[in-house]
């Protein structure tokens, strides 16, 4: 650590004379620009692409401050200030969907990460290549199903008629009569979390497995020399080895904390569980898009974006303070 700091200091001292930006490490003179014109030219299309598809649409955010009516020219739209936001935050349903979104997202995040890392650790220990491949293939195949199909499978296996979950629980004498899993709000978050794990665990594992393969084998050898056993090697070599990957992924996922999903909740939710199943996205579709209230939908979208950006920066800052890898 101190070496790195020293390095940096030396660099800044050196560069001060050459008027180099310490962060980028390159002088920002016309001369360098000219020298790197190929690079600059190559980045132009990307920049234009970003401007057109990622920045120009921000213009549409103005909709959130209007009572937007489609097909009316811009000048004729009615401006309503923060009314849409006021409606959002004064609506008790919105507070409920916000709670649901964050809760389900959090469950997905924790369960998803823990199971993915767990599976990656276990798979890494398996020496039989063939078996390892089969496990991996089986675990990531559900990722390629659409949620519509996946929700059908989930609903069928939870059915009281001949759903596999109820059958197994009955056979194990854990329950006396079939439970209507989808009719009780208290089960809903758990079902969503479990479904997500089932569908995505194999996919999430891939990146951790990749990170594990990049760990220097000599570390394991050294650990063995020091007398480390299997679990100790996992604990003291593998886990720290994938810490950077974990932190980066965590920061990125925290940006999506308000995207708890739409399809699964929409397809599995029903009148009885609506208080637990409705997410922001469903709310936006129901009260925004479906009712032609595009302004409200935009306002909710802006809210989501702003919260996400703030969360990412907070996570990033914490990671920086803890001396971890970080995104920005």
């Amino acid at each position, binding site marked *: 650590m101190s070496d790195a700091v020293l390095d940096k200091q030396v660099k800044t001292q050196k560069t001060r004379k050459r008027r180099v930006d310490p962060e980028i490490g390159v002088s920002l003179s016309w001369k360098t620009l000219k020298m790197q014109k*190929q690079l600059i030219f190559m980045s132009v299309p990307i920049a234009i692409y970003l401007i057109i598809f990622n920045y120009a649409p921000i213009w549409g955010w103005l909709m959130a401050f209007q009572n937007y009516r489609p097909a009316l020219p811009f000048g004729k739209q009615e401006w309503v200030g923060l009314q849409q936001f006021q409606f959002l935050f004064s609506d008790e349903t919105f507070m409920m969907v916000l709670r649901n979104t964050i809760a389900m997202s959090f469950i997905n995040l924790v369960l998803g990460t823990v199971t993915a890392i767990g599976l990656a650790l276990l798979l890494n220990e398996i020496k039989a290549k063939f078996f390892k491949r089969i496990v991996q293939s089986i675990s990531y195949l559900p990722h390629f199903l659409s949620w519509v199909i996946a929700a059908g499978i989930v609903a069928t296996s939870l059915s009281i008629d001949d759903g596999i979950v109820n059958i197994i629980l009955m056979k194990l004498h854990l329950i006396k009569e079939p439970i209507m899993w989808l009719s009780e709000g208290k089960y809903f978050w758990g079902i969503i979390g479990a479904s997500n794990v089932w569908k995505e665990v194999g996919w999430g594992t891939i990146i951790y497995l990749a990170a594990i393969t990049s760990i220097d084998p000599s570390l394991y050898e050294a650990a063995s020399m020091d007398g480390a056993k299997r679990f100790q090697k996992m604990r003291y070599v593998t886990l720290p080895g994938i810490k950077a990957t974990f932190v980066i992924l965590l920061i990125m996922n925290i940006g999506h904390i308000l995207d708890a999903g739409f399809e699964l909740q929409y397809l599995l939710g029903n009148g009885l569980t609506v208080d637990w199943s409705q997410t922001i996205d469903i709310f936006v579709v129901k009260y925004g*898009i479906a*009712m032609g209230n595009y302004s409200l939908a935009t306002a909710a979208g802006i809210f989501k974006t702003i919260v996400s950006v703030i969360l990412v920066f907070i996570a990033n800052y914490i990671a920086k303070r803890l001396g971890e890898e970080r995104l920005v």
Partner: protein
Amino acid sequence: MHKTAKRSTRALAAGTFALALALTGCSSNNTNNANSNTANGGNASPAANAGNASPAANGDDNAPVTFSVFLASPGQTPTEDNKILKLIKEKTGVSFKTELLVGDLQQKLGVMIAGGDYPDIMSGDDKLLNAKAYIPLEDLIEKYAPNLKKHYAAVWNQIKDETDGHIYVLPSYGVYQGKITEPTYQGPGFWLQKAVLEEMGYPTPKTLDEYFDIIAKYKAKHPDMIGFESLNFDWRVFPLQNAPEHLAGHPNDGGVIVDNNKAQIFADKDISKTYYKKLNEINAQGLMDKEAFVQNYDQYLAKIASGKVIGMFDQHWNFQDGETSLISQGKIENTYIGFPLLYPGAEEWYRDRGAVGTNRGLGISINAKDPVRIIKFLDQMITEDWQKTLQWGIKGEDYEVKEDGMFYRTPEQRANADQTSWQLANKITTMFGYMPKIQGTYSDGNAADAGTQPQEFFDSLKPYDQKILKAYNKKTWSEFFKEPKENYIYFPAYSIVLKDGSAAKLAQSKLNDLQVKYLPKAIMASPDEFEGVWQDYVDRIHKLDIKAYEDRINEGIQQRIENWSVK
């Protein structure tokens, strides 16, 4: 070596630059298009423009042309060499590029509206109406479409848009001529399986008690069966929500009942409470399907198709796919007959005279290049000859004519007509569903289509169905219901447009949310908890701005009484 490298980088740079230009160029083009669309949409009289801009108006009427069409229903596209499409192309030069609905309608419409990206012809929709995506048609009809003018003459005022008095959409259903024959009943009812009725000695239930008594007795003998089924999914919530208004003797007005031209919601009234309390009781007896309120539409249909459901309240068209499946499995005895149950003292009004679906049909979009040609085409299609072709098929191939001039089908032709694959090659079912059509009878006395020709209907039935009908001493399924009364002028109230984003629409939406949530709760509660849940539900309804909703409906009713009356 050095030189070539330099040249290639230069080429690369030039290439990227060109790409960048192309990208920006494209985007500005698109904006221009969008602008011109919106400008056109804002224009009050695009019909006039359309008239001028149409080259075919004075040219060859049968020149080949292709119309792009969007239909808001999922379905299967007719085959490439579809018989009818071929004939249309041959006789009129018109062919279609049809887009059927895939996925969610609202989402699709949102995308269409946002991009101003409309095909020439679109099925009618409130959302598209609000976005001013259609051109007014009345001038075009007056000028170019005498047959359509004649067809819609009786409802001319009624099919005008309530907000600005233009005709945007040509309704597909509800315009009758001649005699109304309707052997199959598509509307709401309390349904029971034919096998159940047969075993119980052909009873005719008249009240809720008699109806559930039949179910209870049958289920006692056949415990595997599902007693009473319902559905509470997505927009298909009417099987759960609509029964009270029918039980109380009102026609299907949607979320409101209307007395003396005054509408009010019935969700919180006693007629509702009585019904849901009854459902609560039968749920306690184990007659209600436990999964009824957590299942989706596909699961609902699958249950019906399994033949295990004894009865349900629903509109026939809503579960018909399940019945179709039963028939194709050869389980005709598991299909259903509907009964009009009533509260004591109520007068039956289940069957209604289908009102003109004012915004269900076809409209011409503001993007259409040649509206005159389209309206001329539709005008041709409403002539009796074409209608017979579209509805019955081709004489000698799809139907025969008796000596007295009546149409009939041979058993083989009937069998064909039931097959989906045959339909795809020989009919244009989905598209025709949205086209203006003759209902009732033609001038030669034949019914509009094979399904409504009474003798043809009875003959087409399987022997089992004929036996059941004979046992009840009836000839058609709709005879289980009383002849419909004359419609009120405003009928039906559910088609009154609630403006997007208005307080009325919000209240309606919130009311629906409450019903979706609380009705299952109330039904599944233990009987002694029912009162509490119901009270909670009613209290919450009263917190909503129900008045805005009712006021808007009443306003619509008054407008209709003023504007639709035949003067």
